């Protein structure tokens, strides 16, 4: 049951990500991104991270992507024009991407024994467990992140403010 759900939503996630790159219209790409985010939420749920899954849907697919589509609708962005791309992309881009992929694969495979084992549907982290960790052992990073976000908001307000 869990494996079937995993295969369905992992496939959906990859398909959405590919569609995101291949679509020419920005709103289709944005909608594919929503599919990717929501399938990721289901994968979190399968791994037992309930709160994370709900937060993923509420924050990413619900709020942030609405702003994306909002901007696309406001600008009424048209179809993307296909160019042949720069030469640099062909010369440096593809080998670079392949090298990065190879490096990551190598690192993950060589350190496989040090990773923990996560099984589908075995473990359940309740909201209580998560907040216990977040507000005791990880309190400092949590608070620092919130200050970082506050600074970002202030920066956005300062940039958007009209000069008098």
């Amino acid at each position, binding site marked *: 049951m869990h494996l079937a759900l995993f295969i369905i939503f992992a496939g959906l996630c990859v398909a959405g990500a590919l569609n995101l790159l291949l679509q020419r219209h920005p709103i289709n790409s944005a909608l594919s991104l929503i599919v990717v985010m929501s399938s990721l939420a289901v994968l979190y749920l399968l791994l037992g991270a309930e709160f994370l899954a709900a937060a993923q849907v509420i924050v990413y697919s619900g709020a942030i992507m609405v702003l994306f*589509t909002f901007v696309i609708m406001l600008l009424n962005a048209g179809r993307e024009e296909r160019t042949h791309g720069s030469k640099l992309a062909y010369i440096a881009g593809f080998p670079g991407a392949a090298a990065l992929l190879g490096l990551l694969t190598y690192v993950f495979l060589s350190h496989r024994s040090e990773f923990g084992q996560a099984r589908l549907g075995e473990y359940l982290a309740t909201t209580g467990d998560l907040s216990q960790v977040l507000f005791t052992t990880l309190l400092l990073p949590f608070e620092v992140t919130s200050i970082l976000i506050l600074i970002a908001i202030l920066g956005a307000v300062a940039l958007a403010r009209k000069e008098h």
Partner: protein
Amino acid sequence: MDTNLIPFLLINLAKVIVVVVIFLMSVAYTVLLERKLVGRIQNRWGPSRVGPFGMLQPLVDGAKLFLKEDLIPEAVYRPLYILAPIIALGCSLMSISVVPFGSDVKWHGVQLFQISDNNIGLLIILGITSIGVYGIALSGWSSNNKYSLLGALRASAQIISYELALGLSLVGVVLRSGSLNLRHIVDVQATHGLLSWNFFGGFQFIAFFIYLMAAYAETNRSPFDLPEAESELTAGYHTEYSSMKFAMFFMAEYGNMITVGCVATLLFFGGWTTPFGNLLPEPHSQILVALLSIFWFVIKVFGFLFLYIWVRGTLPRFRYDQLMGFGWKFLVPVAVANIVVTSFCIGLLPPAQ
């Protein structure tokens, strides 16, 4: 679990079908209730010709909408134009799946009065509501019509802004009950009848009024119905829709109203518990207990629907800048203050047990 997977699936499928049928019927009759009540408020009769007291009007309306020609204008972006009402109605139907309708009655180990009983029920409702925006946003954009686009932009901005106040207003209740499970939130309020409801005994009435106002804005209902303000935008985001596609938006709106009523009942008014607490003797029959719980739940939700319609018949529409100012400068700070005061009270006062 694998051994009895088939009966598990069958029972759940049956539950889903029953709930969807009852939900759609109640949507149809909420429309009739609205037409009747608004008629009375405006000193006229409302629908009264089809059937006794106009009771068959929803069926006739449904047949009319179903048989109308389904126009798709030339210039629309077809995939999204067709997808948008499906998203709107789908989200509206999905959010009812975590709502518990009655007391804890199990049959062959399956919860009878709730489709899915899980730990994050409240968050699931919030998540599905936040996905529901896409139905409105995409319909306005794909219609290729200025009025629709303006309506959709208004709706997205309004729903995102009020979602914040809505979410914050629920934190006080979650703090009091220490759980996001809707069934558990109701059980916490079940001890002393009316006095232990979050609205009265829990001193969450400020949170309740914030929730109510934010929820009215979330469902695009009067006095926050700017996305479909007739005098400015013709019909707003569904200007270009006809026949069943229009009906799907309509059903989604009324479905969301019912869900909001259910959530308000569960969180603030004790769900299916009686207001009399232990004053009345507990009935001996299990069936009677179950039926009474359903009765109280339906009565409370009906009260909220009545309030919705009453407000619609009474209050004038907001201006757009007033709407945004009200949401950000009044509701959000008050909701935050409510969270601070509630957590101080819970932290300082000794626990009840």
